[in-house]
């Protein structure tokens, strides 16, 4: 910290105090910096600007700590079963049912108790996932939440899902790359999602919420997991409990009017997730029409409706990939966990 130059400090955005201070020692650290950079002590031509900037960062740090939104080493504290739990997390997102916190080894969903039915629907469906054999279990068990713990507080229901450190929320990865992933990286995410979609079809389950906010990816292993959004999952043709408002535009009208689960929804959302990863967060794909880096035929295919089985569509996708991107190769995604969750 002492060795930071004025340029380094001034480049830190005012709303990112985590990039300058540590959570536990920010008071001590800020005092030290002010002592070094205050114009009374420093003759550096930018000392005044640096001091003002550090003061802004202190203000932002105080706000984030008091609001529990420190994204580096914040702590989620809650009381359940007469015990106080403190969990460190690195990233926080709001979602339609409450809050999501991401730590190195866990995803913590804090759901408003008024959505109890959706919450226990997720827990129940996750507890009844079936595998045809050990091979299928080996392949797919890591792709869905396997070890989850439930807590109940006065106002919330809390679901803890275990994950490995390398697993990153797809939306965080997209944000890191300024809103768009390279088509070659999107391709492997889509291929893995089709595998998961076929597995869900085997279970006669419809997830109903596949999106960049529910999908996690490992750039290191090229693996994809569907950890979030299970609140809306239903058996095929079972009555829907609800759908996330931000995805309703992607649901076919007949599904909404009949309120019955239909597996084609998962494939539509899968394609929408691919479109979002490529740079169109609306999931519709019209924004990509002007893209020069994505083959038009590939965009067109992703925008077409899904009507067939997951396995059939996966075969189509595989041929589309070869047609527009050439033979499959492993393309390293230059991204580390620390780039995303500092």
């Amino acid at each position: 910290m002492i060795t930071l130059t004025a340029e380094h400090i001034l480049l830190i955005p005012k709303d990112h105090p985590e990039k300058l201070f540590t959570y536990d020692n920010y008071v001590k650290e800020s005092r030290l910096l002010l002592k070094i950079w205050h114009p009374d002590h420093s003759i550096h031509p930018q000392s005044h600007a640096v001091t003002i900037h550090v003061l802004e960062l202190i203000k932002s740090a105080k706000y984030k700590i008091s609001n529990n939104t420190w994204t580096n080493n914040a702590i989620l504290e809650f009381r359940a079963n007469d015990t106080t739990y403190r969990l460190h997390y690195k990233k926080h997102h709001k979602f339609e049912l409450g809050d999501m916190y991401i730590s190195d080894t866990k995803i913590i969903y804090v759901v408003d108790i008024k959505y109890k039915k959706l919450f226990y629907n997720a827990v129940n469906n996750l507890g009844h996932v079936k595998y045809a054999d050990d091979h299928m279990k080996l392949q797919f068990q890591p792709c869905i939440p396997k070890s989850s713990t439930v807590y109940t507080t006065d106002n919330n229901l809390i679901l803890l899902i275990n994950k490995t450190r390398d697993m990153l929320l797809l939306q965080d990865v997209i944000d890191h790359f300024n809103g768009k992933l390279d088509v070659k990286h999107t391709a492997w995410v889509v291929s893995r999602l089709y595998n998961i979609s076929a597995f869900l079809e085997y279970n006669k389950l419809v997830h109903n919420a596949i999106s960049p906010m529910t999908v996690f990816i490992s750039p290191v292993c090229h693996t994809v997991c569907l950890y979030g959004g299970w609140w809306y999952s239903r058996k095929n043709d079972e009555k829907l409990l609800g759908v996330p408002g931000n995805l309703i535009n992607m649901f076919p009208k007949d599904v909404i009017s009949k309120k019955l689960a239909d597996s084609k929804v998962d494939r539509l959302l899968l394609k929408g997730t691919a479109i979002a990863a490529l740079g169109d967060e609306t999931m519709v794909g019209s924004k990509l029409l002007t893209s020069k880096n994505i083959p038009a035929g590939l965009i067109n295919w992703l925008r077409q409706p899904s009507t067939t089985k997951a396995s059939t569509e996966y075969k189509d996708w595989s041929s589309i990939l070869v047609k527009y991107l050439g033979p499959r190769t492993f393309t390293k995604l230059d991204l580390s966990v620390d780039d995303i969750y500092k």
Partner: protein
Amino acid sequence: MGGTSRWVADDWDKYATTTRTKTTDKIFTSRKMHADLDPKTINIRESRDSDINPESTPIITAVDVTGSMGMIATYFVQHGLGNFFTEILNRKPITDPHLMVMGIGDVNYDDAPLQVSQFECDLTIADQLEKIYVEHGGGNNNSESYDLAAYFAAYHTSIDSFEKRGKKGYLFTIGDEMPPSGTSKILLEQFTVDTPQTDADFKTTLEAAEKMYNVYHIIIAEGNYAKTYLDKVKAAWTELLGQNAVVLKDYTTLSELMVSLIEINEGRAVDDVIGSWSGTTAIAISSAVKDLTTKPTSSSTDVILFD
């Protein structure tokens, strides 16, 4: 891409004074598909925000130009465009309208089953409308290719209203016949820039269009086919579009009906909308929209729960 100027009422008045003295054949002088409107050469039509139209709202009016429906295109260049822009700008149910016109024929029989203008917000749209080849075609089937309008809107338009603000545009298809079942991939390849892998059935094409547009079909009761089979036509369109399929008994109030449908969709009470018109216009609009309900608004971040 158009849409970087504004509608000027005086310009329209001068223009309409001339066109109102002409017959359909004198106005629409194209005798084949005009190159500017040919979807075989158009990958994308854009409706973009600009300094002068900072919050654009795209509106597509797809007009059946077959057989008995040629009068609709004539109506637009003589009266309809002026009425539409005057009312939409006065009533302001939406911001900064960008209008696109399409000509609809029959993909199985016609040379120009789909013709597509740019999105425009001034009198340029009239010039483009005049380029439409009024083929007076159609076939012996009982439908026209209204689905091509939805197909083009879904896959070949890019609109700032939706992409930047999550606000849908409007697509009106207008005609007197039954909805088609869809269009084969061979014909799509023949008339668009696409090489689709599968045929496009109308229902799924509509679903794709509805992601970016509020889609309506206006059945012209005065058309030859609808005169005989109105109930059947209404039932078929209602099955596809629900209350967004409406019957218009007086086509000279078409613009007022489009404005009314937009107002209702944007939240104005149906009775208020009907009450805002007078004379024969009020009668025609009332007949078309009286059974509609104003849609509830919801936040896109909410969860939608089912009972």
